[in-house]
């Protein structure tokens, strides 16, 4: 070889060699029979898997299974003890949620698009499963040939789809939303063509239409309003609609207007007007005068507990004290003052509404526990998440605070609650708390248990938020201080928002855990979804011996929810790029 050596010109790149295009044999060799050990594992697992699948499918499709119990009890699973005469209220709640879901879809515009190839792959997996079921099903299962045939047809369709995705550029990307809408339409068409249960066609149709309307309105709004405020508004509507659904729509409150107008209204009007005046004055005052006024507001809030004011008045005064304390920090500018006043007005009115509705008796002709089934499960999960949020954030701030007593109290609370199992907390909430309260106070068991889950979830949430707070670089604090921010401004405007964004995936993980944990309230006697499967349905005289079927059904329902939650959280994690920054 001679040097120096110079190559005349640069070679252009070549395509990769054909051998890297995987054939079936190559795939098998690489993935199943890479080495002797791997081959042995593959064979042993394959045989074991075959027998396990055959056993499982044989068990599920056996003639002895009482699967008909599940559709017969669909309503029990959904709402259990809720009076059937008022079932329209449940549908209305569902419609509200569907409407908001459609609206949110339009506002957040998930850019989800699916390629035809991946859709075809999904169809092919479904087809493969059906074919496998057809092959492995027991002799006694009459429709095994039909199932297998449907599977084969699906596989065939998927290959057609694959070819199309190779040749046509148009069919390459299908919007996920369109796909969902199409599936919903298909579902409706099946409902109307095959009269399975005539009473549910109409509400389902209304639900789909409502969701579509919501989506349409969302698109109109998105075209006119800036995305930031619009999203804030939609989020607020979601937060407000949940209490309305559970306290108003589903409870059908019977409000005693005489009491409300006669003895509450003067308090409400007085405090709201006084609050507007106070916030205005405080926001325009010197620092020291504002301090005096705020101290007076705090004293008034505490004093309200010593005189015989209605509970509503005490709550409003407490809210006012908090807002007035925040006013010198956040309400000193004209815009800030307007926002503070609006916050006070909206908060006070909503709190009054909640108290009026919550204090009213229910108009349902039923026993006390009118929530049940999946409805109750959802209420506990959503309710405890919403309520635990402020408490958890406060605890996290307390635990990271520089003030030793707050830190000690927060740490103590968090560690004790995290040290004991949820079931003990539920027992204490359901049967223990009442011992400490005056005997004439009565609480709905649902509320007590909701309180227990909230207290439990808050401790875990606090740890997540603390993780976020500690992940914020020290420079952020220093920058905020250097800009002359007070500690409160720094926390609310700089550190807390960053911390919360950083821990969104962890919080979603906690929502999943919370959803699974709601099954525990069955042990303290609430008729939620799992209790329906465990006790209520299997003990019906015509459903005896169906416990395993019911448990499997419950497991499947929980699985569908949590699996999709966790997939969504993984997507979110990727999109936020948490941990990569």
């Amino acid at each position, binding site marked *: 070889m001679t040097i120096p050596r110079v190559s005349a010109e640069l070679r252009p790149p070549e395509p990769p060699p054909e051998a890297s295009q995987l054939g079936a044999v190559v795939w098998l060799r690489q993935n199943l029979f890479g080495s002797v050990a791997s081959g042995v594992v593959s064979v042993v697992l394959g045989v074991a*898997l075959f027998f396990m699948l055959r056993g499982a499918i044989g068990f599920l499709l056996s003639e002895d299974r009482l699967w008909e119990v599940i559709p017969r009890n669909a309503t029990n699973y959904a709402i259990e003890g809720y009076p059937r005469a008022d079932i329209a209220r449940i549908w209305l709640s569902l419609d509200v949620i569907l409407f908001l879901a459609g609206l949110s879809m339009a506002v957040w515009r998930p850019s989800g698009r699916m390629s035809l190839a991946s859709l075809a792959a999904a169809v092919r997996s479904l087809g493969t499963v059906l074919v496998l079921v057809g092959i492995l099903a027991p002799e006694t299962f009459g429709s095994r040939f039909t199932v297998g045939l449907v599977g084969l047809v699906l596989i065939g369709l998927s290959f057609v789809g694959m070819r199309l995705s190779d040749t046509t550029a148009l069919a390459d990307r299908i919007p996920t939303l369109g796909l969902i809408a199409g599936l919903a339409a298909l579902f409706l068409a099946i409902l109307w063509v095959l009269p399975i249960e005539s009473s549910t066609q109409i509400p389902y149709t209304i639900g789909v239409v409502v969701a579509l309307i919501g989506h349409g309105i969302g698109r109109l709004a998105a075209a006119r309003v800036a995305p930031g405020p619009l999203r804030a508004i939609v989020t607020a509507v979601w937060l407000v609609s949940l209490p309305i659904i559970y306290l108003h729509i589903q409870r059908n409150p019977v409000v005693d207007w005489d009491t409300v107008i006669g003895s509450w209204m003067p308090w409400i009007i007085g405090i709201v007007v006084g609050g507007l005046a106070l916030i205005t004055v405080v926001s325009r005052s010197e620092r020291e005068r504002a301090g005096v006024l705020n101290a007076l507001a705090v004293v008034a809030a505490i004093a309200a507990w010593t005189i015989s004011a209605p509970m509503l008045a005490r709550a409003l005064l407490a809210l006012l004290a908090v807002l007035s304390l925040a006013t010198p920090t956040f309400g000193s500018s004209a815009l800030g003052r307007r926002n503070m006043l609006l916050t006070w007005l909206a908060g006070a009115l909503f709190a009054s509404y909640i108290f009026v509705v919550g204090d009213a008796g229910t108009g349902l002709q039923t026993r006390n526990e009118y929530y049940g089934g999946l409805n109750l499960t959802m209420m506990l999960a959503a309710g405890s998440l919403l309520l635990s949020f402020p408490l958890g954030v406060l605890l996290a701030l307390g635990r990271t605070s520089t003030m030793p007593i707050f830190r000690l109290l927060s740490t103590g609370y968090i560690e004790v609650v995290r*040290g004991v199992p949820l079931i003990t907390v539920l027992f204490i909430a359901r049967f223990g708390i009442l*011992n*400490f309260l005056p005997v004439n106070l009565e609480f709905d068991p649902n509320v007590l248990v909701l309180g227990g889950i909230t207290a439990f979830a808050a401790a875990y949430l606090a740890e997540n938020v603390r993780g976020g707070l500690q992940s914020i670089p020290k420079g952020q604090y220093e920058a905020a201080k250097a800009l002359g921010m007070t500690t409160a401004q720094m926390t609310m405007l700089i550190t807390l928002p960053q911390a919360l964004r950083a821990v969104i995936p962890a919080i979603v993980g906690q929502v999943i855990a919370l959803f*699974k944990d709601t099954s525990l309230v069955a*042990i303290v006697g609430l008729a939620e979804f*799992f209790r329906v499967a465990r006790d209520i349905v299997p003990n019906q005289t015509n459903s005896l011996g169906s416990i395993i079927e019911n448990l499997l059904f*419950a*497991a499947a329902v929980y699985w569908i929810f*949590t699996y999709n939650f966790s997939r969504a959280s993984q997507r979110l994690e990727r999109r936020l790029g948490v941990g990569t920054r």
Partner: protein
Amino acid sequence: MATDTRISRPPERKPPLWRNVTVLKWAAQLVVLAGLIALVVILGLQAAGNLQAQGRSFGWGFLSRPAGIQIGEGIFTRPANGFQVIQTGAVNMLRITVSGILAASVLGVIVGVSRLSANWLLNRLATVYIEILRNIPLLVQIVFWFFVASLTFPNVSADQEGTQWLVISNKGVSIPWFFPTETFWQWSVFVIAGLIAARLVYRARIRRLEETGADTYPGRYAFLTFSGVVVAGWFLHPVAGAVGWVWQLLASIVSAVPTLAWQLALAAAAVYLAVRWIRRFLDSLRSPAGLAKLTDDDWFRIGLAGAVGVVAAAALVFIPTLTASVVDLVDFVLRFLDQKFDFLRTGSPLRFARPDVVVPGRFPQIGTSGMTMTPAFFGVWIGVTLYTAAFIAEVVRGGVLAVPKGQTEAGLALGLRRSQLLRMIILPQAFRIILPPIGNQYLNLAKNTSLGIAVAYPEIVAVGQTLANQTGQAMQTFLIWIVFYLIVSLVLSGIVNRYNRRLALVER
């Protein structure tokens, strides 16, 4: 401003009290603290009033009174008093916790490593396992396994009568087992001594290795030492009866000293702890240049620590029952230990027994000689094991993936084989990453055993609930639960933290 350009020293004036940040901070904290204490007092008074109105009172007497409860399985199936009820529940809980942690760790590591396997089938099966198991509430799984065991396992049949090696039935799964006998405690002294001796030998061999460089097989030597001591103890255990004297002596000392002396000693200890805290705090502020000027904040801390110490000491001195109960407990434990040791006891410390099937009347049953895993135990155990294993598998996978790729490359470049690489480079590093989250999973497992109540497995929550219903002493049961679980949590996290500190990478 423009007129006065002289540089003037600002007058040194303390801000007024209501503008002093420290004062404000501490005032806010103390107000909240006072409010909380007031709330607790009000609630406590209310609770006392409620109890009085119902003609009940708060006390611990139910622990020593007959409970009138039968327990399905455990060390006391017919407990003589409330304390034995709690004890049985606690031991049942610990049984599942310990065996579940072992099983879940093994299974979790296998599944986690399978998840990283290049074998597609193994990889996919592990993924399916994880995705199914961790997305279904544990309670559903426990109840499911319980019903699988009690509905689908066969009945005990009469032709199984007699001693068996393994009985699988809807009454439970029975296996042969070793049971401790009355000489077990004496032997356990040798087991502990064996552990200590093994540790000493291990260290000595390591030192030898470091000095000479020769292979000294410290692990093997330690194991042989331990086995030797334990086997010798099997025959020599009556010698350990002498330990009984030590307990006796200690017990007599404890009860001979008057309560007042203990009170004063404990009070002195409280004051000493407070003083030590303050001194350490001051030391931490001391720099080579001398003691830093104390801020108001520091003064508040010192004052608070002193106040806590003084209040605790005063409580110990003026409320003798506090001290008396501690002394009673210590005395009780010492006398209990004393009973377990006696020169005259002989016989093997462990008894091996196989399960048997008996037919007392028309219906065949499982006898009491073997170890029987009831359907409830089976349900809870399988449930928590499979569930926790799914989470451990994810932790293991994450830990292995978190080891930087450069480590693998460096190992390969040195010519290490895949198996050597995994054993000596990847796993030791992954283990450090894995350990803290695994510790959390162990804690979760321990807490999740409380779901046994759903299938009537008599662990501490279930028996506590029964006891509370029986005696009406719900408050005390709640307290027992909280204290028990906190102790378990503390012990478990203590063990994990210890290992964690030991394994921590040394950094600059």
